[in-house]
């Protein structure tokens, strides 16, 4: 594994004044964000607040109208010259995406490939790793997420929790510099949530840089180094988990936390 154990102050993901509309809806309204190497940042907020869109913009699955994104210090996806954007080539976009892992709400495993096939697909065809090396690394990762015996299974033969752990392993197989998690437990049966969160906690413990959109407040409280509350396309409040869950400053944060926690 890559050594992430000594976090320094180098920003891994930087977002600057990001704006994005869906029709009349201003879904991202001037987002500024910086995530340091080794940090685990959780984004919470009501649905429709723009958290998932922000994550998808960071991986260029959505294209914002304006703003800048830097990955590991480098301007990603497009250049701006005199207010005019010039899109990077598809190949350059793909190269940046290859450095950032992403895990989705609905797993999105490739159903026509085995679990092993899912894990080695991109390392072999994108990173040009030798097949044997890719398989060895994949096996290590499957052991790490507790799926060592499922390498030859097809995704549809697995439970939701197993599929999501396989999807995390698939993203890790690219040896990413950072990981994006987009509501990865929202589609799971309640009893399967814990096993996925356990894998994410372990990953956080290993020093992985993580940006996590989640409704799991306990995970945010325990695993996050910083919690961001978003509403209506803006970052409303941003602080330590102790601060935001113990004594939120903003009334909107308090209202949101009251509705999700006091049930």
């Amino acid at each position, binding site marked *: 594994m890559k050594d992430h154990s000594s976090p320094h102050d180098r920003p891994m993901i930087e977002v600057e004044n990001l704006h994005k509309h869906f029709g009349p809806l201003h879904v991202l309204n001037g987002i500024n964000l910086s995530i340091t190497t080794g940090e685990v940042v959780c984004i919470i907020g009501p649905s429709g607040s723009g958290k998932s869109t922000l994550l998808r913009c960071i991986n260029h699955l959505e294209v914002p109208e304006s703003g800048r994104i830097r990955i590991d210090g480098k301007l990603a996806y497009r250049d701006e010259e005199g207010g005019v954007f010039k899109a990077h080539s598809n190949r350059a976009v793909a190269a940046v995406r290859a450095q950032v892992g*992403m895990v989705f709400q609905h797993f999105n495993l490739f159903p026509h490939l085995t679990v092993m096939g899912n894990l080695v697909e991109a390392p072999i065809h994108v990173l040009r790793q030798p097949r044997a090396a890719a398989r060895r690394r994949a096996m290590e990762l499957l052991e790490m997420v507790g799926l060592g015996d499922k390498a030859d299974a097809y995704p549809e033969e697995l439970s939701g929790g197993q599929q999501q752990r396989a999807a995390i392993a698939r993203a890790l197989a690219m040896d990413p510099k950072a990981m994006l998690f987009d509501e990865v437990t929202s589609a799971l049966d309640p009893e399967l949530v814990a096993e996925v969160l356990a894998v994410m906690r372990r990953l956080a413990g290993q020093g992985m840089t993580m940006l996590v959109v989640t409704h799991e407040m306990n995970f945010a409280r325990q695993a996050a180094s910083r919690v961001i509350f978003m509403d209506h396309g803006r970052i409303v409040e941003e602080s330590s988990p102790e601060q935001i869950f113990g004594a939120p400053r903003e009334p909107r944060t308090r209202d949101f936390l009251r509705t999700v926690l006091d049930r």
Partner: protein
Amino acid sequence: MFQLFNPQVAVENIGPLLGGLLITVELTLVVIVLSLIFALFVALAGMSRITPLRWLMKAYLEVIRGTPLFLQLIYVYYVLPSIGIRLDPFSAGVLALTLNYSGYISEVYRGGIQAIARGQHDAAAALGMTHALAMRRIILPQAIRIIIPTLGNYFIGLFKDTALASAISIQELLYTAQVKAALSYQYFTLYTVVGFLYFAVSFPAARLVGYLERVTRAGYGRRRRP
């Protein structure tokens, strides 16, 4: 003694008729291979970001769908020579049938590609795959599996549609029977044998398609294979 079905005539003509069936099968197979390839280009061009290319494919599709296959065959064989394109009957048949079936099959491809969930594109992109690589490794393999039964049904249709090629004197099964019948007046016997020969190929092919449909619907895990 007068009889409708004359076994002796059937036996005497079975050789030429089987020869005709062979041409029919050859024609079908050649058109299957060519249209599977050509239709993929039509489908991808039809979904291209280049607008004129999309329009061109749309126009092609509407012309193919808006005119009879019979006319298309006759057009390729009898009209193209007047602009200097002279084809032998078999080539003309292959060209017309390929143009026709590629139109329809491109729509089958398009449906299959669009049936693959958005999340598959997202996952492939997030892993750093280019659009072309994602198409080749992730989207098309799934799409092809979905459309196999539909393609099978189209190809059974094609096998029967090749009978139209008798109109441009390709010596396939129906044409052979027409020639023999014109000489012997044994319409009942000859056309019954012809019907039987078409059915003898179509029916097993349809069963095979039915089997493929069950296999592809069953999902990917070995556990669920029928």
